[in-house]
């Protein structure tokens, strides 16, 4: 007995009488289980090492210097960029704008996206057509977007104001005031991204077995009840995904406010920075004021801010999706 075990020591099942071959296969199999996950996640980390890590470290490094673009000999100033940032009114203004636009856009967007997905999940006619239709805004080229939206929101000759006037209401200078501009930008953002998020939720909804829904119908649950008690809890991983990515995307909003500005190509976020977001301020500091060190500090502070808020949203979503599923759907 001991001899047999010595001959085939690797045989995990301990089957006596086997030769070395299955032992190798067992070993390969165990290696497969143990190491293949690392192989599978490796591509991301390899690409990241080349194109993600270096920019990250570079930005962190630069933020500790008084580094102007084209500077050959920047001076080390430690955390001075960061302290200056916290005393900077324009920075806090941009944080306020970012949070305001974020709330105005992401909140309604997620709700509408989930409702849209629920509707698209039904037995509609021409399903593919509807799905393509809601994603169409995301396909718009940025060049076209700036022309379209500046024409929609133009204060004097814009389409929306013309319609408002036609209805007997006042014209609104969308680009002038803080709140009107936030509404307009939130509208742009929602127009562009709601369909995107709806499709994500839809894909997840499609994975929910129909039998669960049918059983609920048999038990007498109406559509809304079914939705809240059956669908939502099963969507939890996807909802978490949508909330986190929307939070991150929403706090990093850059394209829409930049395209919205009356002055083309401006990074100012309006004549009094009324809709300048943090990323716009970052971009302005780097490419207009040529202050690379300061811009890098802004980038890192924004990063920390996003992590904090995303974490909060994540915990809230996890809790919400939990309690709604706590009750049985009956």
């Amino acid at each position, binding site marked *: 007995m001991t001899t047999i075990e010595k001959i085939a020591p690797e045989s995990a099942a301990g089957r006596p009488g086997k030769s070395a071959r299955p032992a190798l296969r067992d070993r390969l*199999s165990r290696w*497969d*289980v*143990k190491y*293949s*996950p*690392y192989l*599978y*996640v490796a*591509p991301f980390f390899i*690409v*990241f090492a080349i*194109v993600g890590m270096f*920019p*990250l470290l570079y*930005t962190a490094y630069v933020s500790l210097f008084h580094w102007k673009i084209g500077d050959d000999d920047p001076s080390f100033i430690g955390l001075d960029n960061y302290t200056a940032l916290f005393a900077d009114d324009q920075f806090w203004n941009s944080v306020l704008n970012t949070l305001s636009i974020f709330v105005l856009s992401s909140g309604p967007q997620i709700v509408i996206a989930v409702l*849209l997905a629920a*509707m*698209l999940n*039904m*037995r*509609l006619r021409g399903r*593919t057509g509807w799905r*393509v*239709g*809601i994603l*169409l*805004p*995301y*396909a718009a*080229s*940025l*060049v076209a977007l700036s022309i*379209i939206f500046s024409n*929609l929101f133009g204060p004097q000759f814009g389409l929306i104001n*013309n319609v408002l006037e036609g209805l007997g209401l006042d014209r609104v200078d969308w680009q002038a005031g803080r709140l009107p501009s936030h509404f307009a930008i939130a509208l742009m953002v929602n127009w562009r991204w709601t369909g995107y998020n709806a499709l994500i939720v839809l*894909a*997840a909804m*499609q*994975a929910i077995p*129909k*039998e669960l829904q*049918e059983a609920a*119908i*048999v038990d007498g649950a*109406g*559509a809304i009840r079914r939705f809240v008690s059956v669908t939502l809890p099963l969507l939890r991983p*996807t909802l*978490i*995904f949508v909330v986190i*990515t929307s939070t*991150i995307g929403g706090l*990093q909003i850059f394209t829409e406010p930049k395209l919205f500005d009356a002055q083309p190509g401006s990074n100012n976020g309006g004549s009094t920075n009324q809709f300048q977001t943090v*990323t716009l301020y*970052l971009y302005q500091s*780097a490419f207009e004021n040529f202050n*690379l060190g300061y811009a890098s500090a802004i*980038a890192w502070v924004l*990063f920390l801010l*996003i992590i904090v808020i995303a974490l909060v949203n994540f915990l809230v979503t996890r809790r919400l999706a939990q309690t709604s599923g706590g009750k049985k759907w009956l």
Partner: protein
Amino acid sequence: MAVVPQFLRRTGTTTNRIGRPNFLVYGLLIAFILGSIFPFYWSGLVASRDNSVLTDHLPPLLPGGNFFHNAARVFDTVPFWKALGNSLIVAGTVTLTTVLFSSLAGFAFAKLRFRGKNGLFVFIVVTLAVPTQLGIIPLFIAMSKLGWAGGLQAVIVPNLVTAFGVFWMRQYTVDAVPYELIEAARVDGCSMFRIFWNVCLPAVRPAAAVLAMFTFMTSWNDFLWPLIVLDAGNPTIQLALEKLQSGYYVDYSLVLAGTTLATIPILIVFLLLGRQIVAGIMQGAVKG
């Protein structure tokens, strides 16, 4: 199992007698679609007429006949077909690799056990929060040092696999691929990769289709980085469109004709992939 006979269903707020969506649903959807499509319709209007439409008090309702004339001008002014080809190569490659590698990593994070799994995953999600605007400068330095600056590889390699893709596929795979199936495949002696290929991939097809659409579109519309890193003779479609804006006075109908033309390939990709967002392949497998 419980296939509900149609006569048992109630007429609900959103469904009619036979369980199909009622007018409320269709109405809401139509309203949403109209809002989504309107800017495209309007830009098509301008592209098929001329600039004067921009300034009309209320836009005309019907397209004019100028589109083909404007389109011809687009082809003359910029290297449209070459840029289109470049964009197809870039977007196509990036989409294929992103979907493949993201599914692979998503499978690993969702279903496999290994040391450091949670830490690595959180790391990936956290990288999403890094603002990318400043990355242009160091990335350009990196690309130059590697000798890739100017060619399409500089646009492809940084996008080969994205944190977004990995995150998304992992969330979807968590629920979509039941453990029982994987166990069954293991017992049958499948290697990890075969399990991924034969069990996981078919189950996550809808999510993969969605990811493919998003990745293709994001790559297609990418502007800032290709502008910096690509050679003038090697543009992608967005860069070619940008050239339509030269001159102090911009011919908006020309620009919008160009963007309309550039959106057509995306529509084709949509239609092809849109039908894939249908699950149900693995639904019955566990029960059986």
